[in-house]
């Protein structure tokens, strides 16, 4: 929606580091559909552009981070880099946010991560 504003980073020379948590989904909506709508995923899977190429089109350096081992070094590189930089973290696609209070539930009904998710 707003990636065109990367041009503003270049125009103004702002050293902002963009970290994209790329799971290929509209994550929170997918989580709700998975938990409360019987895993009926509708209109949440989204083709993602190659963000590194997109950043490059704006003249910004981009780094794709594909494995867990690369995470720390990528962040260090971003810190050291002068000027704007984009990090595309290819995170786990099915991860959900826990704890959760389902909509309409009370705070006393907070749910923690179920065992099968903790085992992943």
């Amino acid at each position, binding site marked *: *929606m*707003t*990636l*065109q*504003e*990367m*041009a*503003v*980073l270049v*125009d*103004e020379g*702002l*050293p*902002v*580091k*963009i*970290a994209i*948590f790329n*799971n290929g989904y*509209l*994550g*929170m909506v997918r*989580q709700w559909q998975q938990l409360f709508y019987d895993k009926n995923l509708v209109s949440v899977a989204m083709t993602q552009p190659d963000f590194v190429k997109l950043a490059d089109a704006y003249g910004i350096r981009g780094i794709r*981070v*594909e*494995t*867990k081992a690369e*995470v*720390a070094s990528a*962040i*260090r590189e*971003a*810190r050291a880099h*002068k000027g704007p930089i984009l990090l595309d*973290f*290819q*995170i*786990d696609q099915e*991860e*959900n*946010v*826990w*704890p*959760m*209070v389902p*909509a*309409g*539930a*009370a*705070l*006393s*009904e*907070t749910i*923690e991560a179920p065992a099968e998710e*903790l085992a*992943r």
Partner: protein
Amino acid sequence: MGRNFPPDLLHSRKLIPCAGHCKYAPAKSVANSKLASQTRHFAPDVPMSYSLITAVHAGGKSADQPTLFAFSPRTWPTANREQPRPNGVAGAGYPLPGATPETMAAAEGPRFMTRMTGAQMVLDSLQREGVDTIFGYPGGVVLPLYDTLPQFPGIRHILVRHEQAAAHMADGYARASGRMGTCLGTSGPGATNLVTGICTSWMDSTPVFALTGNVARSLLGKDGFQEADITGITHSITKHNYLVMRPEEIPLSIREAAHICRTGRPGPVLVDIPKDVFQETAEYDWPEQINLRGYKPTVEGHSGMIRRAAELIDQAERPIIIAGHGVIWSDAQAALLELAERAGIPVITTFLGIGAFPESHPLSYGWLGMHGMFYANQAADKADLIIGVGMRFDDRAMGRFSAFNPGVKIVHIDIDPAEIGKNFPVAVPIVGSAANVLPRLAEQVKEAKHQPWIRWIDQCREEHPSLHIRESRRMLPQFVVRTLYEETNGDANIVTGVGQHQMWAGQHISTSALASSSVPAGSGRWGSNSQAPSARRSLAPMPRHGPSAETAASR
């Protein structure tokens, strides 16, 4: 200064010294006063900008050179005024109670009789209100304003690619600096593109000043090209908005709007100006004081209520403080710490209140809500007294209202009286600023420890550690967030959008870093995260919370 003005403006400036016979002479009642004898007044006959006058003024300080003063006839409460003005505005209408010409002159300082275009008035007024950055996107009806921008080198304009970015950047600027953020869009689609950002600011109570152009006055209401009833559209998402129909009203409108924006519960305002009002020349009359009869935010909490609250706190066995965004906006973190430590009360925050209380403190128990910590939710649910400060008991934080902690007593401290009692019945309402109320409350409560209660919450935290990141060979987003925090030594200014990543950031980035962040919470605006950082970094960094705004992440 001189090189930034168009050459013709400088060279055609003519100042005609007048010996006291022109209509700009001060009224007789002060003609013999000491102030009058030190001045000579001039009748400029070309438009001059305020900045230019300042330059001239600065050069004429020695005793033998007259300082450039000119008293507007409207300063004085004379009967033979040319035009009637709205009530209560000093300098343009009836005097405030107790005012005499001498006191008004002394209080208000020099008044400049200048004629300016509306566009110049807008920029000068904004500059007087301390605006140094405008995020905007040009368009037809704001061309006169953009044409005038170079005359004001003190205002930096950041060109965005869509007005939504301008509004979100203004919002991010406000959150980062604590000052008023300003955005600018043209009429019609330009103005409507600002709406989502204005709504974000409305929901999260941040001071954003939206300036829009509109079609010429003769076309208003006739479905002109790129016309939109933006004042109607933003009626319910601004604290107040203005459609300025005369250039003379520009300074007053902007002054009032900025005042409303920043005071009380901060919130967005919008000033809409038709194109020909930008272009028309008129007298610039900056109101030194304003008086909004219908807007007097209560800052000082009622002492009787504070005493009652202190009594309830002393009697409570399981008290808890829920600190919200208001603690941060009123800079009341130190007072909150004092209260919590003195009365031994555990503190949890709302999502927007992250940063109101240091997370490393033993009395800190994270934040509550839909994705908050299990133990924070339990503590809120089992408390017998909740002290809510600068928060609004919204549904994301409290869960289902009807099932929330029946029997709890609530002390609600908020600057907005409309929030008190809105969602939950309140035992002791205190309308006032957190910075005013919390210290007074802290000095009245008795020292206490509440050890059994704190032990209970600690036990809950041990059994349900909500922030544990499990070992996995997958790249878990929680792991990435945590690494980001660690690699930047907790110094980074973090801005998020809305969604899962926002929640993970809230959970795994420690207080001081996230406190300097922009998290559009109330309106759930997605995608705005790329815009706010531009705003934050573009301003001369003024750290509001946390170690520094010049952070690892922004190098």
